[in-house]
Structures are given as C-alpha cells and as structure tokens.
C-alpha cells in the first residue's frame, strides 16, 4: 500500500491511489479510441488493449482489496497476524473505508467486490463480442471504448458516497449503453430499441434529478451520511422526503427494469446486439442493484418501513408480470429479457426485509446472477452466428444430440435461473426466501415460490426441447474450443457454487455488515 501511496501522493489528493482501477479504465478507453481512429488492421489490437485494460484494472482492484485488508504491509505485522489468527486479522480491517477526492468518492470492500464482478462480467462479454460482430458484419471499434466508458460509469456508481457522484456515474453508464444498443447499424430493430431506451431512459434521468432535488430541498445535503443525519433529527413523514424517496426508487427501478418501469427492457434487450444484451443484463444490472442497496441502507435507514414496502410492491409486480409474459414468448432472447425482469423481482424482493440477512441475500443473488445471465445470453450470441438460427424456441430442438456439451451448459444456466439444486440459483432464491420469512413477509415469500414454479414453464421448455426432440432444422454448428471452454467455466461455476456456496455466502454476509456499519459513520 505504502509504495503506491507514495507514488501518487504528489498529486496532493489524499488516498488518491484507490482510484487507480478507474484511471486505468479511463486511459484504456482513450487509447482504444485513438487506435480506432488512426490505426490500421486494428481489430485484434483493439480487443487485446481492452482486455489488457480490464485485466489490469481487475488486478489493481485486487491489490486495493489486499491493501484495505492490510495484507500488503511490512512483514512484522503479517507475522503477527499469522500468530493471532488470520481470519480475525482480516475482519479487523474489513470495515475500513477510504474516502478520496475530498469526500466525493468512497472505496470499501463492498464497492470493490462489485467492481470485481463488473469487470469479470465485462471480460466475458468482450471475449465473445468480436466473433459475433464480425459474423453479423457489424463490427465497429466503438463497441470497445463505449463499453469501457460504461464500465467506468458503473465503477463510479458503486463507489459513490453522495447523490451527485451517483448521478454522474449513472449518466455516464446510461449514455454509453444507449449508443451500444443502437450499434447494430443495419438493423432497424436495434435503432428502434436504442431510440426507445434513450427516450425512456431520459424520462428516468428526469425522475431521478427531480428526486435528488426534492431530497436536497428537504435535507440540504447530497452525501448519504449527511442525509441520514438530517433525517434523524427531523420529521420522517415530510412530503418532500417521501416524495423524493419514492421518485428516487422509481427512477432506480427504471434502471433495474422493475415493473411498472420495465417497458424499455424487452425491446432494448431484443434489439441490441446479443453481447451487448448480456452486458446490460449482467454488469449493468448488478451495478444498479448495488447502488440501490447502498442508497437505501446508507441514506435512508430511518424510513426503511416506506422503502421496504415500495420495493416489495415493485418486486411482486416484477415477478408476476415478468414470469407471466415470459411464459408466452417464443423467442428465447425476448424470453430472457422478461426473465431478467422477473429476476429483478426476486433480487429486490430481498429489500422488503430490511435486515442484514435481506441485504446479504440481495448481494448474494446479484453476484451469482452475473454468471447465469452472461452464460445464457452468451450462449445465444454464439449460436446467432450460424445461418438459420433465429433464437426461436424450436431452434433448440435436438441440440443435445448435435452438441451435447453446449446443451449441457445451457441446461445448467436454465436450471440455475429456475432455481433447482445443485445449481447456485437455488441458493440465491433460498436466501431471499429465508430473509423474507425471517421478517415475517410471508405473502412475498409465497409469491416468490409460486412464481418460481411458473417460471419452470419456460425454462424447462428450453431444456426439454434440447433433450427430448429430434433436430428440426439442418443447422451446422462450429464452435471453437476456447468458446466452449469459456461457457463451460461459467456453467461449472454455477454448479460448484451450488454445491459449495459457503464462501460466497460469507462474503455477502460480511459485505452486508459493512453496509450496516457505515450507517452513521
């Protein structure tokens, strides 16, 4: 830690070094931008620069995690730690929070863990992006730096200690994603989707701005900690506060595509190039969930009664509408869009139980959701490259015979989304369920189970089409070994985490106690 600290201490901003991962992403984005502008035969170079930037940022995120845990330190302290018990030593440093940019940016283990998952999810997307874009004859270098800017926006979002930083991160991410959806330039659907999302996303931005204005009007503060303090000493049923809070929730719900703010989702997901859909469904989504949790817990713990009810209603609506409409979809990509609405329902349902267990369940579910969502959509992106594949449910018929490995992989993702042991999806739903029961919110817990059963209708249709039918169309698949391998890794993670969720669960429980510990801090 100290070496890095010394390196950048010249800038004069305290704790500036915690910004290194973000700075790397920013520089990479500009480098890719210039390569794209001036380079020749640049496609491999762009991909590899992006991958290198993301990986480097990932490595530095880990370094900062180790730094916060005080593991990069002089040997004497480490030796002492080994004697006094390693786990307690790590825990003792676990709640450290580093503020930088004079209080406008905060970095702790909570935000770092989410950054790791955002970066990993993005790496999987980048890995499959080029072959997809080239096979669709829609390759543009802009994909890469726009994705990098969106990643930067998400990283700012999860690290924000106040509403303004959050707003900047959200806008940076959203604007990059609007353009990314429309990148499929020759496709009318893609352009339409981008336009729709732009309009509705703009509405969302307006809602959030107004919400921030109301909250500012009420408290005179932007920082989460300050809002909390004002809240503590004032009338908690103030219209300005409640109105601002509810509008903020609705704005966030729009970004997380919860019903009734979900209308952009199916069109945008279906119209976007599939790797971008995966990008929107996984990294963008978990950044949104993280920031929702952060704002609710850090700024508004004293009105948790209101927001837990609001999220419970949004969750219930999302589960019902998402699952019911997914049931009648014939296009698997669109089906997955509705399924992502339903998953938003399952995930924010955990907020209905404003307890440590509930927050832990939300964190656990959002982290594991990355693997399922990226996996299932990447599967589509791989297969869309082949002549005759339309993502129609009938295209899956007989896949197990033609390509048993890929069928197995897709089966694992479907079972995990459905929530059947030994896949990790089961654990995610179980933890949300237990959190709800623990807070005596039986109606939502029961609804969650019923809606999971309804969702079997469409997830299992994919599986049964793959395994119990003869191939319907003569499509030949040619999937390279690294692609098979990368999908296999995702599927195996989904299964292994289902058998051994302990470590993940520990992490999410600890992260949720970090969040709680920052209240009033």
């Amino acid at each position, binding site marked *: 830690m100290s070496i890095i600290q010394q390196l950048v201490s010249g800038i004069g901003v305290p704790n500036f070094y915690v910004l290194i991962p973000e700075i790397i992403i920013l520089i990479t984005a500009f480098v890719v931008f210039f390569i794209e502008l001036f380079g020749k035969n640049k496609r491999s170079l762009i991909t590899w620069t992006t991958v290198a930037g993301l990986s480097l940022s990932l490595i530095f995120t880990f370094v900062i995690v180790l730094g916060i845990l005080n593991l990069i330190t002089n040997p004497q302290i480490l030796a002492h730690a080994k004697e006094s018990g390693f786990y307690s030593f790590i825990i003792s440093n676990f709640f450290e929070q580093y503020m930088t940019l004079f209080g406008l940016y905060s970095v702790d283990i909570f935000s770092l863990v989410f950054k790791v998952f955002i970066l990993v999810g993005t790496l999987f997307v980048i890995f499959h992006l080029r072959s997809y874009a080239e096979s669709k004859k829609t390759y543009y270098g802009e994909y890469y730096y726009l994705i990098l800017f969106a990643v930067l926006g998400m990283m700012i979002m999860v690290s924000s200690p106040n509403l303004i930083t959050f707003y900047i991160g959200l806008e940076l991410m959203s604007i990059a994603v609007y353009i990314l959806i429309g990148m499929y330039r020759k496709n009318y659907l893609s352009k339409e989707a981008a336009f729709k999302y732009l*309009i509705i996303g703009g*509405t969302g931005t307006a809602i959030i701005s107004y919400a921030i204005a109301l909250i500012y009007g009420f408290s005179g503060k932007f920082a989460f900690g300050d809002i909390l303090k004002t809240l503590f000493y004032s009338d908690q049923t103030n219209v300005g506060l*409640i109105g601002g809070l509810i509008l903020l929730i*609705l704005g966030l719900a729009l970004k997380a595509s919860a019903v009734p703010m979900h*209308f952009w989702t199916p069109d945008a997901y279906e119209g976007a190039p599939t790797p971008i859909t995966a990008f929107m469904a996984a990294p963008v989504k978990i950044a949104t969930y993280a920031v929702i949790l952060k704002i609710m817990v850090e700024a508004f713990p004293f009105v948790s009664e*209101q927001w837990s*009810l609001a999220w419970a209603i949004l969750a219930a609506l999302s589960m019902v509408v998402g*699952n019911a*409409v997914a049931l*009648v979809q014939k296009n698997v990509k669109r089906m997955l869009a509705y399924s992502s609405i339903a998953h938003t329902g399952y995930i924010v349902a955990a907020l209905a139980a404003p307890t440590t267990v509930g927050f832990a369940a939300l964190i656990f579910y959002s982290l594991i959701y990355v693997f399922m969502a990226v996996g299932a959509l990447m599967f589509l992106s791989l297969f869309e490259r082949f002549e005759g594949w339309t993502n129609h449910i009938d295209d899956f018929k007989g896949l197990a015979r033609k390509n048993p490995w890929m069928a197995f992989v897709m089966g694992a993702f479907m079972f995990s989304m459905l929530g059947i042991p030994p896949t990790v999806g089961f654990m995610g739903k179980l933890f949300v369920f237990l959190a709800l029961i623990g807070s005596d919110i039986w109606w939502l817990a029961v609804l969650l189970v019923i809606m999971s059963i309804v969702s079997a209708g469409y997830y299992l249709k994919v599986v049964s089409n793959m395994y119990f039918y003869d191939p319907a169309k003569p499509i030949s698949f040619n999937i390279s070994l690294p692609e098979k391998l990368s999908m296999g890794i995702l599927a195996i993670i989904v299964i292994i985490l289902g058998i051994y969720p302990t470590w993940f669960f520990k992490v999410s429980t600890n992260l949720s106690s970090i969040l709680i510990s920052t209240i009033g801090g």
Partner: protein
Amino acid sequence: MEYLWVIPFSPLIAFIIIGLFGYKLLREPLAGIVAVIGVGIAAIASIIGFIDVATTGNYYDLKLYTWLPLGDYKVSVSLFWDPLSALMTCVVTCVSTFIFIFATGYMKGDPSYPRFFAYLSLFVFMMLMLTLGDNLIQLFFGWEGVGLASYLLIGFWHYKKSAADASFESFIVNRVGDWLFLLGVLLAFVTFGTLDYLDLFNKLPEAGYWTVTAIALLLFGGAVGKSAQIPLHIWLPNAMEGPTPVSALIHAATMVAAGVYMVARVMPVFAASDLALDVVLFVGTISAFLAATMGLVQNDIKRIIAYSTLSQLGYMFAAEGLGLFGEGMFHLASHAVFKALLFLCAGSVLIALHHLLDVQKMGQIGKYMPITTGAFLVGALSLAGIPPFSGFFSKDPIIEGAYEINWVVWVFLWLGAGLTAFYIFRLFFLAFFDGDRLDPHIRKHVHESPPQMTIPLIVLATGAVLLGFFKEFFANFLRPSLDPMSMTFLNEKTKILVEEGLSRSHHVHIHENAWEFLVHSLTSPLGLLTLFTALGGIFVAYIMYQVKIINPAWLTQMFKPIYLTLWNKWFFDLIYYAIFVYGYYKVSRFLWKAGDKIIIDGIVHGSGKTAIFSGNVMKLSQTGRISAYVLQMAIGMLVFLSLFIFLT
C-alpha cells in the same frame, strides 16, 4: 483423522474421470480399472479408520463446510465416524471392491462399459455420503442419490422394455417412502431445531412422546421403501432386470440395507417410542415370513435370491424392533457378504448359460463350474443358518432373542428360517445338480468363469465362513454406538430414556463369544430346534428335487390354492395394479364421463392456462409505442406516489 475424507471422494473422483474421459480415452478395460482403484482406495482408508475406532473406541465428527444455513442451524457436509458408521462404511467399500472386480469380467464386451462403471462409482459415492453424514439432510441427500443411481442401473439396458419399466417402478415406489422420510426430517427440524444426530439425540427428552413417535414412524416409512419391506416391497424383485453385479451390490448388500442402517443410526429416536419399535418389529417379521413364502415357488434364479434378500432384511428389522440393534447390524454385515456371494455366483452362472434365468431349464452345471458351485454352496449354507457359517452366528441370535421376548414373532421367524433353507437349496439342487434339463446348445459352451470373476467368489466365500467367529469382536465394537450406557455422546437424560426404551431386550442373554454360542445352540432345546428346522428344510429340498421321492407337481396339485397365492406373490402386485393403475384409470374415466372434464382440466391445465392467458393480456401493454410506454409509466408513478404520500 482428516484422511477419512478420502473415503467418499475417491469414488467421486473415479466417477468424474470416467464420466469425462470414459468413452474417448479409457474405454473397455481402463474405465473398470479406474473404478476399482477409486473404490479400493476408499476400502483401504475405511479399514484403517475402522482399526483406529476399534482400538481406541473414539468417535469423530468432522465437518467439511457449511452447505446451507437454515436460521440458527447450519447444514454441513460432514463425516461422522463412530463404530456404527465405520462398520457400515467398511461393508460398503469392501463388498463394492470385490463386486467391482467381478463386474470388470461380467460386463466384458458391453458397448456401455464406461457408463456402467461411472454409475457404479456414483452409487458408491452417494452410499458413502449416506453412511458418513452427521445429519439427516446429508443422509437424505445420499438416500436420494442412491435412489437415482439405482434407477439408472436397473434401467442400464434401457432398450429392454422390462428393464425400463422396472427402473421406473422402483423409482415411483421409492418416492412414496422418500416423501414420508422427508416429512419425518421436516418434523424433526420443526421439533428440535436441529438435524445433527448428536444434538437431536440430546434434545429427545424435551419432545413429547407422540411427536417422537411420529418422527420415528415417518423416518421408518422411508426405510420401508428403501429396504423393500411389505407393503412397499414390490419393486425389488423386478429390479433384478439390472445387470447382476448391480443386483449384488445395490439390491442385496448395500443400498437396500440403508434402511436398516438408518434405523440403527437414529436408534435413540426409535428407542424413545415403544410404538415405533413395535411397528418396526411387526413390519420386519411379516416381511421376513411372507417374502420367504413367496420365494418358495419362483423359477427365476435371481428373483429367488431377491426374495431371500427381502426376507433377511425383515430379520434385521425384526432384530431392531426387538431392541437387539447390535445383532441386527451384525446380521447386516454377514448378510452383505453371503448375499453378494450368492448373487455373484448367479452372475457367474448367467455368463456361462448366456443369461438363461429359469432354474427349471438348468441342471447339472455343477460339474462344469466347480468353483462357482462350491462358493454357492457356502453362501446357501450360510443363508440357511447352518453352523459354522456366518449366517448361523448372525441369524440364530435373532430367532433365539425373539423366543424370549415375543413368541408370536418367534413362530414366524422360526418358520421363515425353515422356508429359507428349503428355497435356497431347491435352487441349489435344481440349478447345479439334478437331471440334465439343459439345452444341448448351451451345454456345449458351459465353462468356469475367468479368474477376475472367480477370485472375488473365493474371497467372499472365505468371508462367509470366517466372519461368524468374530461375533464377540463385533458386539464389543458396536457397543459405543448402540448400547445406551456406553454411548459417550448422549447426555444422562437421553441415556435413561433410551435405556428404558430398550428394556424389552434386557432379560435376553445371548452368548457373545462365538464358540460359547455354538456350544449353547447345540446343547439347548431351542438351538437344536432351530438347527433341525434348517436341516429339515434342506432335507425336504433334497428329497423333492434331487432324489425326487415326492413329486413337486403332485404337491402343487394338492395345495393348489396355497400354491396360486404364493405364485401370485400374495396378490400384492395385482392389488396395487388394480388400485393405482386400473383404479386410477377407471376413476378418471368416470370423472371424464360425468362431465367433470372442466375440473380436471382446471386442476391440471388451468393454472398453466391462467398464467399464459394473463401473460397474453399483459403482453398487450407492450404496444411498441413509446408514448404508450411513457403514459403507462406515468400512471404507475402516480399510483405509487399517491400510495405513499397520502397513505403514510
């Protein structure tokens, strides 16, 4: 003791290796060898652990990790190593090792050779998870896992319709038991707030009598399904459609004994309720007797042995119901050895006769297959309970104990012993001696099996001869797990409760030393009566099927109603068919005819249709027009805002 983790995971690793590389890299001999090595390592590790427990008398509760936190209780993946689980694990791994070796010869040339060994390794892994867990959830995981493996292996030759049907039947019948078992587990969790055996035992005195009885009976319901006791026994004879090593391993030695093991494992729960013990006792006794009578008239070589398995499992349950848990577990171990031996001999015969199953068409194969015949004779004598074979030392104490506790039970068990001796020697004489009924085409090819099949037979036969003399060792060995006063992991209250529950067997005195027991049996009237009954059964079989003084056909005519009842297996299959298959069909037809199509439709499809219909309705809101979207969103926001601002 950390090395014990090798035991369950080496078969799992073998399963993964064979599953991944079985067809492409390993193929025929290598896949089998990998499986044998996997289970062999487990056997060696479990023997080392067994010796440790035998010398020190300790117990170990090793937790690998928490799988699932349920509120305050954490379900862990764990390994509980005490004398009881050590014995069961050793039986499973050692018997499996020999059966695996045998199977490398038996499955020779089968196109699905790697698949077979992958399934077998999976089965052993699941079985070990079942025996080694320290909580009911892990037991249930293993319980379902062995059920799955059994389903896959019975239907291994899935292109045979009978095999596919039998596997389906076993799956369905087992589900009935498993549901009861799961309900028992849930009830135990609700009552005690924990599922770890040790915590659960120590909380027993807090619970009411009827709660404990309900838990014990529900758990026993699972055991009835898994161990194929009456009335859920019908799947086991049909399960003989699977390859013979599967019958030997799963449907004789290990999986079907899991129910017996489970009852012994949660012995304090059963001991806390005399009603539960009585149910175990009577279900066991009735199964022991009825299955023996069904075995009298069968002609399929494997099914005869299958009925004897049912019957012997009944003896084990009867022993547990009598409170003689140690004797029950000892019979389990000795039965595993001699029954595996009998099945492998049958497998050896089948290979020689090209899968001819009907004993009426065999005969005189003894002279072509001397090793198989000798081994089968040892197994048959052991099953019949003739000293000095192991069956005598394990089965006779149960019969003698029953005499002192409940004479009705004794009568059935005693008659069952005579019938057992008769039917197994009927099979022996018909198949290996007697006249020459064998098809000349087949007889040309009859030959002794290769060494990888005969060596396991010889080893198991040696075991069947010697095991009985270790009676005292096993009794002392199991004491820390099954004798309440020596169970160090129980608290005082539970000890007293369990001691009271087992008081029914306190006045029974059975000599622990094998020699003393032998001398006692040969001198006391009761022992002599049992012995002569068994010898009488063999003698009747001899005069009927070898010297043919009595003609079996004539007997059949004489006692036609009895014969038909037995031939139809006491009509169990027919009744079940009538109720569940035909009855269900009739009822649904009636309902349909009565115009209730709406109700059935409503229940079966209605929920799906409602969902699809509402999906279609909601789909309408997705108009594709942005203005409509924004309008709907605005309405949603308005409703939301007014809800919170005006109502709170």
